[in-house]
Structure formats: structure tokens, C-alpha cells
């Protein structure tokens, strides 16, 4: 074998190993989710196939007793408001910063820049008191307000995009008698579609997966989102891995579908989001 061939074999071997490392833990959980209570206590090994591959009983349990349905409802509600808010806030900020010169502009920009460096986890001790002060504690509005108000990344994404829209478009509209609001609404906002798509995807996945904020701000059992509802499986189903597995698969499946459908946008969005 030539050296090239050895290198090639090594490359493919490492890729296959990585694939196994990623997929095996997930695959085993999927298999477990199809097993019965009896199979599990009967010592069915982690790698054995379920006796009945169409046994969806655990999924029924997860939805009915684990309240996954209402959890999806709450997550959807938060998603709609948080995303709509983020898009509006982000695009307005980007428009104001890029298209106007005004006093204290440098200060405003610096405030947003600096906030991007502050990791949200560190300030929750005090944020909690503020959210509580507004009476938003243990309501769906707490996460909505926090997701809307602390997202600097999407402001960056919008800003990059607004900058690429030629100013001559604004000017010609202004000559036609349009004011700043009409320009924002009729020209800038519609042209921001690709940036909006990016923000919706990135924000959507982040909000869907977030655990910390709903866990801190919505402790009540009736207000579970998918993360916190799944987390609560730990208590009652502590020894029932088949039910916990079904819950985990229920949560992962939508992500997988969205990923397969929107792959390219997702890579793009997260790269832009991280490099800002």
C-alpha cells in the first residue's frame, strides 16, 4: 500500500468511528424507547433490539403522563412571541444604528457591544429580582421578555444585512415623500428576508433547547416547556428508562426534521451567529 492509501484508510476509519460515537448513544435510546417494561426488567441489554419494533406504548405514556403535549404548546407560544419580538427589535436597532447619525450613537453602539460579552448565566441572580418585580415570575412572559431583550447576536446579523442594502433605495423613497417609518416598513424590512430567516432558525433552535431560563423562571408544573417537562421525567420515571427514552426521542425528533429540511440555512446561521 502506498502512503496515500494508508492515509485514506485512516481518514475513513476516523470518520466512521466518529459517526458511531455520535449515532450509537442516540440509536440505543431509540431502541430503548420501543421496549416494554418487562423487557427492561428482564435484563434486555442496551444493544439488543426490542421484541416488538412497533411498540409505541412508551410514547403514549410520555405524552399523556409526561404532559409533553402541553409542553409543546408552551414552547410554541414562547417561540412565536420571542421570535417575532427578536426580529422586530433587531431590525429596528440595526436600521436606527446604520441609517441615522445622532447624538450618543457611539454610546448606544458601545452598550450593545459590551452586552454581547456578558454571559447571561452570570447575571440571573439579579435578573431574577427584576423579572420578579415586574410580576412576570412563573408566567410565560418571563422567558419571552428575556429572549427578546438579551439577544445581541441577531442585532449583529441584521446590522450586517442592513449595511448591504444600498442607501440610494432609501433616498429615492424619501424623494417620493416616504418618511423613516415607511422606509423601514416598505423597503428595509422586506429586503431583510434572508437575515430574518437566519434569525428565525437560530433563535428558534436556541429557544426550543433552552433549559436554564424556563427552569429558573417557570417552576410551576403547569408551565412546563419541552426542556423542563422532560427534565421532570427524572423523578417519577427514575427507573423507567423506556419512558425517559421515549420522552428524549420526542424532543429530538422535531430538531432532526428541521435540520434535515433546512441544513444549509442552519450551518450558515450558526456560523454567522458565532462569528458575528
Amino acid at each position: 500500500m502506498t502512503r496515500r492509501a494508508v492515509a485514506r484508510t485512516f481518514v475513513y476509519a476516523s470518520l466512521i468511528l466518529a459517526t458511531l460515537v455520535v449515532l450509537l448513544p442516540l440509536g440505543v435510546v431509540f431502541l430503548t424507547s420501543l421496549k416494554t417494561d418487562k423487557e427492561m426488567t428482564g435484563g434486555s441489554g442496551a444493544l439488543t433490539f426490542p421484541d416488538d419494533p412497533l411498540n409505541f406504548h412508551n410514547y403514549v405514556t410520555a405524552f399523556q403522563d409526561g404532559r409533553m403535549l402541553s409542553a409543546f404548546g408552551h414552547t410554541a407560544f414562547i417561540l412565536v412571541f420571542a421570535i417575532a419580538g427578536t426580529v422586530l427589535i433587531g431590525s429596528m436597532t440595526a436600521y436606527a444604528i446604520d441609517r441615522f447619525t445622532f447624538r450618543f450613537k457611539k454610546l448606544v453602539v458601545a452598550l450593545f457591544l459590551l452586552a454581547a460579552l456578558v454571559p447571561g448565566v452570570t447575571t440571573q441572580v439579579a435578573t431574577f429580582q427584576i423579572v420578579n418585580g415586574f410580576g412576570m415570575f412563573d408566567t410565560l412572559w418571563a422567558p419571552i421578555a428575556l429572549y427578546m431583550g438579551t439577544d445581541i447576536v441577531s442585532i449583529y446579523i441584521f446590522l450586517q444585512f442592513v449595511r448591504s442594502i444600498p442607501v440610494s433605495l432609501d433616498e429615492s423613497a424619501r424623494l417620493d415623500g416616504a418618511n423613516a417609518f415607511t422606509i423601514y416598513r416598505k423597503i428595509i424590512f422586506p429586503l431583510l428576508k434572508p437575515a430574518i430567516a437566519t434569525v428565525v432558525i437560530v433563535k428558534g433552535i436556541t429557544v426550543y433547547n433552552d433549559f436554564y431560563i424556563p427552569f429558573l423562571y417557570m417552576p410551576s408544573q403547569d408551565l412546563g416547556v419541552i426542556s423542563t417537562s422532560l427534565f421532570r421525567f427524572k423523578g417519577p420515571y427514575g427507573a423507567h428508562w423506556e419512558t425517559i427514552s421515549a420522552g428524549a426521542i420526542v424532543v429530538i425528533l422535531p430538531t432532526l426534521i428541521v435540520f434535515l429540511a433546512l441544513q444549509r440555512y442552519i450551518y450558515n446561521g450558526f456560523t454567522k451567529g458565532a462569528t458575528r
Partner: protein
Amino acid sequence: MTDTTARVSVTKEPVRDTPVPAPAPRRARMWRHLTPWIFLVAPLALLITFTYAPIVNMIAYSFTDWDGVSPELHYTGLENYTELFTRSELFEVFFVSGYYLVASAIQIVAALYFATILSFNVRFRNFFKGVLFFPYLINGVAIGFVFLYFFQDGGTLDSVLALFGYHSDHAWLGTPFSANSSLAAVSIWRYLGLNFVLFLGAIQSIPGELYEAAELDGANRWHQFRHIIAPGIKPVLTLTVILSVSGSLSSFEIPYIMTGGATGTETFVIQTVKLAFQFNKTGLASAAALVLLLLILLVTWLQRRLVPDDKVDLV
């Protein structure tokens, strides 16, 4: 500001007779000054309420013994900070971050490796790319459960090892060293994908002719990596290092979901959350959170110092 209005009125002077509107009346000019602020009022209000006000409050709380509920609080000076740095069990949590730092280093090397080989022509490239990236998108709680089962007695890991004839009854999450290493390994599994995709994007933005030219000059793959790829991804690499360090210092989800901080896996953020919301020590927790915030800002500042990054150009 006054400068632009002056210039406008000067240029307008000679064209008085054309239908272009004369210098705006006072009210219109006021509107023009106000317009950007109308767009900014909501974003700024949210930014101040949920980012800056908490920081200011946190600084204030950190000098008190407030419990988070009672109307009474006493100024205690630097007591919280001395407690934080002298009570060893409060400080020990930083050693746990060490595991995650080591894991980040492994993660960056692995991500670089996979990004490099997948930037060349490899069969099923998109499949491998998708597989490596997908874990980053999965819900943290689901990942926690998947790996609780993975490390469980007789779970996935034990079964795989048994396939190779290695039968162990080692409790993977049983001792502090083993538990922390396992949790750090899970965080590699989770976050490798993001680093990998960032590196891949950076490598692919390097023009292809460079490789061809290098190949003509007789450079092998290692030379190509050393002299073309490595310099090309330097900005992304430093960014990744920052993200990893601040991520290691503030790791929370995986250890909290999987062990709840038991068997010596408590991280700084878990400890802070417990202090604040379980033991009602808002004062002490604020001091702790502030220390963490300053540490992370310090790391970021150091990076900006060491590697002046021209990519940050907001204005």
C-alpha cells in the same frame, strides 16, 4: 450633527426656486432628531432592564447579606468576597472547570482534524458533516438523559465494552474523577459540531488556487495545513478558544441535568444557582456571579489584546 444641518442649508441656498422643500421648519427638524430614538426606545429599554440593571444591582447586592426575599438587608462590606476566597469548598468548584478546559482543548484539536479532512474531497462528505454537527442542535436535557443511560450500569457503554470482551462494573459517574471526565466527554460530544462547522467554513473560504499552487510546489497535506490552512483560520481559532474558556468556566446544563452537582461535579454556575435560589444567599451568590463575570470579561479582553481582531466593526 449641527455640522450636517449647516451643510444642507448651504447647498440648498442656490436652488431656492426649484420645488425642493426649503430648510425644514423647527418641528420637522425636531422630528428628524427624534426618529432614530423612536426606533431605539424599545431595544434600549430591554437592554437596560435585562442586562445593565441586573449588573448594577448585582454589584450592590454583593456588598450585602440580602437573602433575596426579606425587606431587610445589611451592608457587609467585602465579607462576601472574603468568604468566597477563603472558604475552600466555595472555591473548589473552579477545579471542576479544569476538566472542561482540558476537554475543550481536545475538542478543538478534534474539530480541526475533522474540518481539515472534510475540506478535501471525501466521499459522503455532507453526511459526515451533518452527523458531526447534529449533536450541537439537540436539546440539552435530552442529551443529559441519553448519556445518563450511556454511562448507566449495564447501559450503552458497558454493553459496547462487553462486545470487545471487557466486562466492567465500574460506576462511570461514581467517583469525582470518573464523573467529571465523563461529563466533560459529553460536552465534547455536544459542542464539537459547532467548532467543526466554524473551522470548516473558514477553511473553505480559502481560495482553492492556493492549494493547487502549493501542490505544484510539492507541498504535502501537512505542509498545506501548516502554511495555508492554519494561518487562514486564525481569527476563528481565537474566537473558538474564547468561547471554550468562557464555556468551561460557566458550564451548567450537562452537569446539572446529569448529576445535579453530586460526587464532586458541582460547577461554578451550579453552586451560584444553589446559593441564590436554594439557600437564599443572594448577597454571596451575587459576589460569586460577579467574580465569574469579571473572569470572563478578562479572558475576552486578553484575547482582544493578544490578537487584535479587525472583524469587530459595528460602526
